[in-house]
């Protein structure tokens, strides 16, 4: 089991957050866990980390449908940030809309970060696969 320095969960649904957190405990070890309830809170938090030279999360679990700033808007802002490291961003959504899948393809092409698209519910095996340093 590889150890991950920090992981971030961006989701407004407490049940999903609980679920991801619980599964993380089963598949990996990590130093730090950040939780944000929407994209805006997350991007603000990450900019703070950059400013304070705090190491950035290596893996991000990102919901799409959120108030204030949704997952796509978060991605839009995130890929603009000057981050040398490759961050793994796992989109976790219940959406089966083609629109979302197309959006994923769109952002995937635009950045050096690793973006995956995952449908809920996520099984333990799957969780193991996507919880790795990119």
């Amino acid at each position, binding site marked *: 089991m590889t150890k991950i320095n920090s992981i971030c969960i961006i989701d407004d649904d407490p*049940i*999903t957050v609980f679920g991801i957190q619980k599964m993380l405990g089963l598949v990996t070890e990590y130093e730090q866990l950040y939780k944000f309830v929407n994209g805006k809170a997350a991007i603000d938090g990450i900019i703070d980390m950059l400013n304070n030279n705090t190491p950035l999360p290596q893996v991000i679990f990102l919901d799409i*449908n959120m108030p204030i700033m949704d997952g796509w808007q978060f991605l839009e802002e995130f890929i603009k940030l000057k981050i040398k490291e490759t961050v793994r961003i796992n989109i976790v959504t219940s959406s089966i809309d083609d629109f979302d899948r197309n959006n994923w393809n769109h952002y995937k092409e635009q950045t050096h970060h690793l973006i995956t698209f995952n449908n809920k519910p996520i099984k333990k095996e799957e969780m193991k696969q996507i919880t790795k340093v990119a």
Partner: protein
Amino acid sequence: MRVHNKPLFIWHDPTTLVGKYDNMLKKDLKLANNYLIKQLPKATAFINSKFEVIHASNQWIKEFNFETRNVFGKSVFSLFKDGEKNEEWKLILDKCLKGQPSDLFNIEFKDPNGNTQWFEWSNIPWYDSEENIVGVIIQAENITSRVINEIQIEKLEALLLEKSEITKIGTWDYNIKTNKLNWCDITKTIHEVPLDFIPNVDTAINFYKDGISRNTISMAFHNAMINNKPWSEKSQIISANGIEKWVIATGQPVFKNNELIGLIGTFQDISDQVEGDNKIKENEHLLKTLIDNLPLNVYIKDRESRKILANKSECEYMGVSGPSELLGKNDYDFFTKEVAAENIKDDVSVIKSLRPILNKETVSIKKDGNATTFLISKIPLTNDKGEAYGIVGISTDITHLKQKEEELRHLINVTSLQNKKLINFAHIVSHNLRSHTANFSMLLDFLSHEKEETEKENILQMLRNASDNLLETLDNLNEVVAISTNINIEKTPVKLNNKIEDVKQNLSSYIVQNKATIVNEIPINAEIKVIPAYIDSILMNFITNGVKYKNPDKDPIVKISYKKENNYSVVSISDNGLGIDLKKYGSKLFGMYKTFHNHKDSRGIGLYITKNQIEAMNGKVTVTSKVGEGTKFNIFFNDKD
């Protein structure tokens, strides 16, 4: 024709006087006789029974150019050997010698200049004192000028006849003294009477149709006789065969020595012409009736774009009682400057290019602001040289059609919007239900593997929450479906001011709790047509929204105002709250489960339902907002449908 039965001269031959006078005397007498004959003013010659010339007057010699030759003792036939009628003449002379004076005898004679001269010969026996015929006295009269006149008159008469036959203009004349009326053949033919018909004034007047025609002619005739006034009247006759004809009859008094002696005039059949005129008038009438009753605006403009014809529809559209109020005026007199300029530009282009404009859609705005959509066609009117002297304009009012088109387009928009909403709704449903089921599935999976009791209890609690969330979602979806299916609920007028007071009443504790002020600026009598259940929900939602997303530094103030705009009653609800970044969230503002403030009461369903309710009443909603200053929603309630 003069006939000479009696001898004109009793001639005493000098030879017969022998014994009665002495020789001297005889000789003198003979000379005297000779001298006398020479001086006769008429061209006269005496010939003996052998047709030899014995005496001749100077005039005779001069008339026939015998000055250079000796005629005496020569036969007259040798003198006139050119004469073609010598044979005929000889017979006459023979008769004279037998005592029968001849009729007049005309011969042609060419003078030395080659001009034809006409002579009338009188041949009479020459008696001596014993009444013996000794020869013939020939007298010649030059009748050339008379003959020429006669030929001219003959020519004129023939010409007149031909002319009157061609033009069908007959003549008539009336002699007062004899009370005789004379009609020429043409006049008789027009009356359809036989050529031997003898008219008189009464029968002539009675040919005129009883009524105006007969009265007119009687008056004209009377006026000519009494006041010597000429006339020319168009009137109707009924011919002998009972056929009605249009004629022009003229009459003119004739004077001799200042005394009225009669009337002459012409008589012309103009039935064909009148019939033609009537036909033209009929056609004109037909055309006018047609043009006037076409459900199109028809007009003709001259080269300067002035109206020279306008039909009824055009007059009605222009708001005038008749074409006379339009004629000579151009579009600047009736339309706005822009419309008139555009119209005249079209007119000029058609006149210059000779190419018609067909079915062009234009909006005409009259000076009173009235706008009409027309399909216009402008066609050049050309003369025989191919130049345009104006245009014919035909305009079809398609305002109504245009409105229908607009309505249809609106309907299509609504339909496609509904369709979009439906797809959106389907996605919302699938997403929300999926997210709940995903949670159930995950939590149940945890539960089955969990061994720790407290954690089991924790998971169970979450399952309960998930179940509640699912129920709430289903309730919300139900509400949305209800709105979408209740589109046909009848709208009733509602006093808006009262409604707001009701809502304030219901929210009173909430308002007090938040230290909010609700400003109701709606006029007491303002009414809007709405579905009553929806208006409560709409007002409640917007007002609580304004309070809920208050600026933490200010006490919330929600202001509700009202105005009329076109077919809408516009209710504006503005607050001094947080405001929304419309650039970022504008497109999602009214989406389902979208909230823009991290607020514990945000459910993200309110605006979605509200918008659906407004749209179900054929209204719409717009929003303006500034982050940190507040938000203003404008709700458009449709007054019409």
